[in-house]
């Protein structure tokens, strides 16, 4: 072992990390080399000095300052949690909430003709051409209103032309609303005409319709509130027993009367009684007369 080897191994020697054969070789060299002995001793003194350095003491309030930092960290952590937790937790909750709201709105839309109507009225009326081949458009002279029907699978695309009777629509705020009535008819289309006639007799009208005449037909009707009970009674009567043909002679009921006379014996369902002749007031409701809207679901008899 030469001097260079000894200098390289001096730290290991002083830290007692030499293998036995290295240790004996190094000590043998130190026995004959005063320069290496001096270097080793100088390094030992340096290490000793380093070890005698005093600890650098912390301030007296070190512990309380650590606790203050911990408290501050906790507050920041809570704030961070509120801000960042949505990524893990709140986003799924929000998505769930959105889905639930969507389902609720959709449910209300289909269950409430008023909502559907208002939704449609907010959309500019489509031209018949734009409605496309899949649109079953029907125009109806009922209070000067035109109704566009579209495919049932795409109800949101439905739009209805704005009614000329805008003033009547504005008075809807004062109109009370009622639940849907269901009736079963042999001939849905024919029954619809009878309802129209009955409404005309009572000063009411058909506001809108959905569905096809050969399947379930949903009618939204409006009539004076004072005639609601009578109208519903007529419907029930029509469902339960023979419904008399109208005896009055309003223009719109001429065909109905004829049909009623032709079908005096057939099943009672799908026929509407006309109990009395309508007055001029009934046929033409006053604007300040409280109106009620009803939904009528006409089901074809199976």
């Amino acid at each position, binding site marked *: 072992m030469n001097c260079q080897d000894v200098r390289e191994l001096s730290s290991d020697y002083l830290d007692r990390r030499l293998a036995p054969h290295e240790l004996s070789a190094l000590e043998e060299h130190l026995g004959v080399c005063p320069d290496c002995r001096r270097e080793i001793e100088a390094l030992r003194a*340096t*290490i000793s*000095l380093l070890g005698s*350095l005093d*600890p*650098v003491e*912390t301030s007296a309030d*070190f512990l309380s300052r650590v606790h203050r930092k*911990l408290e501050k960290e906790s507050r920041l952590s809570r704030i961070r949690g509120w801000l960042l937790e949505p990524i893990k937790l709140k986003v799924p909750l929000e998505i769930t909430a959105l889905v639930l709201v969507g389902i609720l709105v959709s449910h209300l839309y289909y269950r409430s003709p008023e909502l559907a109507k208002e939704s449609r009225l907010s959309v500019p009326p489509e031209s018949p051409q734009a409605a496309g081949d899949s649109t079953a458009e029907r125009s109806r002279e009922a209070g000067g209103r035109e109704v566009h029907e579209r495919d049932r699978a795409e109800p949101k695309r439905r739009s209805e032309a704005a009614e000329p009777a805008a003033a009547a629509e504005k008075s809807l705020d004062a109109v009370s609303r009622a639940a849907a009535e269901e009736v079963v008819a042999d001939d849905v289309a024919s029954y619809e005409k009878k309802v129209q006639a009955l409404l005309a007799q009572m000063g009411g009208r058909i506001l809108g319709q959905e569905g096809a005449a050969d399947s379930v037909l949903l009618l939204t009707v409006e009539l004076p509130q004072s005639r609601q009970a009578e109208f519903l009674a007529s419907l029930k009567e029509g469902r339960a027993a023979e419904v008399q043909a109208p005896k009055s002679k309003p223009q719109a009921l001429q065909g109905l009367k004829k049909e009623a006379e032709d079908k005096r014996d057939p099943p009672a369902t799908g026929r509407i009684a006309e109990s009395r002749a309508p007055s001029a007031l009934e046929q033409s409701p006053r604007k300040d007369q409280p109106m009620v809207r009803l939904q009528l679901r006409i089901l074809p008899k199976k």
Partner: protein
Amino acid sequence: MTSAQDPDKELVQRIQNGDRPAFNQLVLKYRNRVMGIAARMLGDRGEAEELAQDVFVKVYRALGDFQGAALFSTWLFRVTANSCLNHRRKRRAEVRILDGAGDAALAVADPSSNPHQLLEQKELRIALEKSIQSLPEEQRIVLILRDVEGLSYEEIADSLELELGTVRSRLHRARLQVQAGIREKFSLDGRRSDRL
């Protein structure tokens, strides 16, 4: 020493079970050692104190995940060393020596020393601190952990995630450089250079 023989094992378990006083004990036990490493690595007492506090906050937060694979002290010094190295990388400031307050801490009262000896001793230790500060940081942290804090080679290797051979070579180079620095200082003064 294995982790099974960790003298801090019980304290750590108590802290993990939510025992705040146990955490206080741990802070009081290690605060000066953490502070010493930070002060000598950063060369600034104020920054070192802030960093030492942050180290204990980090340790408290992370203690729930501490599995005891290493000694707690080894883990603590690893957190301290990494915090110092990261701090220095961020700061990129000039190496500064400990300020006057730090220097005062170096003056060890020796009853057998006369005033001249005390002054010489103080100068020697200031020179020593300067020599430490002049080391490259990867050598400095090894020297501090070994010769100032007294960690074993293995503990240093674990703390700094280094090979043992790297620890040995860095430590030896650091020692030789510190020795050379002190020699230079005292050979210029014409004092004590014969001992170093």
